[in-house]
């Protein structure tokens, strides 16, 4: 069993500090869901489609939420989103786009591609941590997944 087995949240975030803050917040709010982080689009796709470094693992059936940063190295967040939402199985997993900017011209594109949510990460850490915990709370606890 690889360390990525049994993961419930996939965080795709290239900035390790942002990633740390996000993971820390989710953990502090007692959302015990296991979180796995990848740092670019290629890694994200490898994880989701069980290929490359993740070829040995089986499909992440336990995955309940994907937090996807829109600005990523190599393959950007929108391309990853497109791959997720055109896959008959993956498309059912709620995917939340994270962005640093509300200026983003990609908001419309993200929704067009089928993003379940689009969140602008607040600068203010209080707001940021509230935002992240609300997201985890909503998608892991409130939202009813397909049974």
């Amino acid at each position, binding site marked *: 069993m690889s360390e990525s087995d049994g993961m419930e949240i996939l965080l795709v975030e290239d*900035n390790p*500090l*942002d990633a740390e*803050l996000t993971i*820390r917040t989710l953990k502090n709010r007692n959302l015990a869901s296991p979180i796995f982080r990848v740092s670019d689009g290629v890694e994200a796709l490898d994880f989701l489609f069980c290929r490359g470094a993740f070829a040995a693992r089986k499909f992440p059936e336990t995955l309940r939420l994907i937090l996807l940063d829109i*600005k990523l190295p190599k393959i950007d967040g929108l391309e990853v989103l497109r791959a997720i939402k055109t896959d008959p199985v993956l498309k059912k997993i709620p995917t939340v786009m994270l*962005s*640093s*900017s*509300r*200026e*983003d*011209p990609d908001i419309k594109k993200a929704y067009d591609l089928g993003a379940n949510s689009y969140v602008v*990460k*607040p*600068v*203010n*850490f*209080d707001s*940021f*941590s509230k935002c992240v915990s609300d997201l985890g709370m909503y998608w892991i606890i409130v939202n009813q997944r397909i049974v």
Partner: protein
Amino acid sequence: MNSDAALRLANLHANDLFLLICNLSQMSNNDKILEIFLRSLQAVYPDLSLSYLSPESVNSGSALKISSGEKDFGFLSFGSSEPGESDLSLMQNACGMLGLILRKNEQSQEKQNSFRILFENMTQGVVYQDAKGNITSANPAAERILGLSLDQMRGRTSMNPEWKAIRENGENLSGEHHPAMVALRTGKPVLNSVQGIYNPEIESQVWMAVDSIPQFLSGSSEPYQVISVFSDITLQRGAQLAESEAISDSVKMLDESIRTRKALLSVVEDLQKTEADLSDTKANLEILNSRLQELVYAVKNLSAARTMEEIQKVTAASAKALLYCDGVTLMLREGDSYRAVGVDPILPLCGGKPFPLESWINGQSILNKQIAVVPDILADAKLPQDLAKDIPFKSLVLVPVNPDDPFAALGYYWSKEFIPTANEIQLLQTLADAAAKAIQNIQLVDNLEKNVKLRTSELEIVVKELESFSYSVSHDLRAPLRVIDGYVQILLEDFSSKLDGEGKRVCGVISDSARKMGRLIDDLLAFSRSGKASMELSPIDMAAMARSVFSEITTENLRNHIDFSLDKMPPAMGDPSLIKQVWLNLIGNAIKFSSKKDRPVIAIRSERKGDEVIFSISDNGAGFDMKYAEKLFGVFQRMHSQDEFEGTGIGLAIVQRIIARHGGKIWASAEPGKGAAFYFTLKHGGEA
């Protein structure tokens, strides 16, 4: 008064006078035009004066009365578009011709008058007979010599036996041998024939020497009348027969009589010529007039043309109406070659492709700046004969467009041989000049459009660059700030036990500054967004928008604390997202600056002024000193220190930019400690 009205007015007054229609326009200085008219008229007819038919001063056209003293001669109407040098010269020609007619008319009248005096008082008899020999007129001398009154003679022919005419030798002179009848029959003058005629008044034979001159109408070989001039030579003849020494005297007298008669005849001929000349000139003027009218239409249509094809069509129609031209090509110069527009039977031959200028005579006319007349296309070596044989036309006239520096040429084609006169070439050149103006206009518009497109695409690039800059700024500047704030929080949460009070205060300062930096970035982005390229205008329910903004930026507690009032307001026309930004900033400011009052009061009102609405928002807050009012709307300009009120100093700059982009105005009034009021105008949003 426009040119059509001028024409109508001129027509109304013209009766049988000449009407000249000239094309002129957009020449602001009518007096100058008048001067040109007058000068060209007076060059041939010094007594003429010009005056406006209608008293009003005109801009685009008018009818002018041409008169000499009390006498009105004609009317001149001008108007319409784009005057060219050749229009003026054509007009000058027309005016010149009109003056010539007027002068000839007068000359003719003078001659007629002097002839009338001569006719009445001369000693020689003059008799006019029509083509059938009927006497139509005779002078008093003729009445005396023949012993018959004009009434008695009128209608009589030479064939009448009552003349009792005899030859010099006493033989009977029959009617058909009478010199007048011979002249009519042969069409040649019969000079100095001597005959005797019975004068019933004096009841005796009168001897006379007769010259009979046939008269022709121009273009006819059959005389339409005959004029006979005769002198009474009874006395001379009697003397000649009675006394030989008197012979030389009588010969002298006879010679004199012949000379007089000849002089007289030349006067008559001159008079006839003058009259024929006059009618020719009148006919010429009529042609010129109709050509001018046609040119007026052509110039009008040319100035409305928006494509080269339209110019070619208008020119072709005009050349057809003017000179029965069967087809026109417009050849546009493109560097060292030319390309043809128009004339369907020719285009397939050249395929619309460019030809080198020097290759054909067409291009050479552009190159050499010369008009070329080709009477027979097939016989002209400068046309490629393999192509020429397929051209269904006989004659070609090539006229360079803009002769000083031709950028095109017009080819006029005729199916039958056509060799233009100098005047007709001038006409074709005038048409080409009018086309030149139209072509230049189109090229000007094209250039303008190209420039506009270029500038627009440049602007679009700049706007795109700005957008991607904003994007990067928002992304890349915000992320580190969040990290700073986040890690300070970790410090405070996880290491709180190791931090004393000062340590915690320092962490608070770091955190505060990071948040301020975040707000600054947000405001700067809003400012750049306020200048975004496109605005989508729609009617906005301003009251609803202001109310929802107020709710959005206040908590319930705050709302209960503030005395907020909002009038019913008319809709405004604007871009909803930008106008919302205006309310966000203005209401936000009002809340901020009144926040230190026990009971903040904020009032939003409106007042309609014509098609605009003035909106106002006032508060009872800190206000500001009006002497700094001009700095109010500058970027990073602040009226208060950060200790008093936080702020980035960008909000009002955003508001002003948005209002200015909507064509509105913004201003403020305030008093320190008593509050401030901001006013801005927007277009009324229509009846809601």
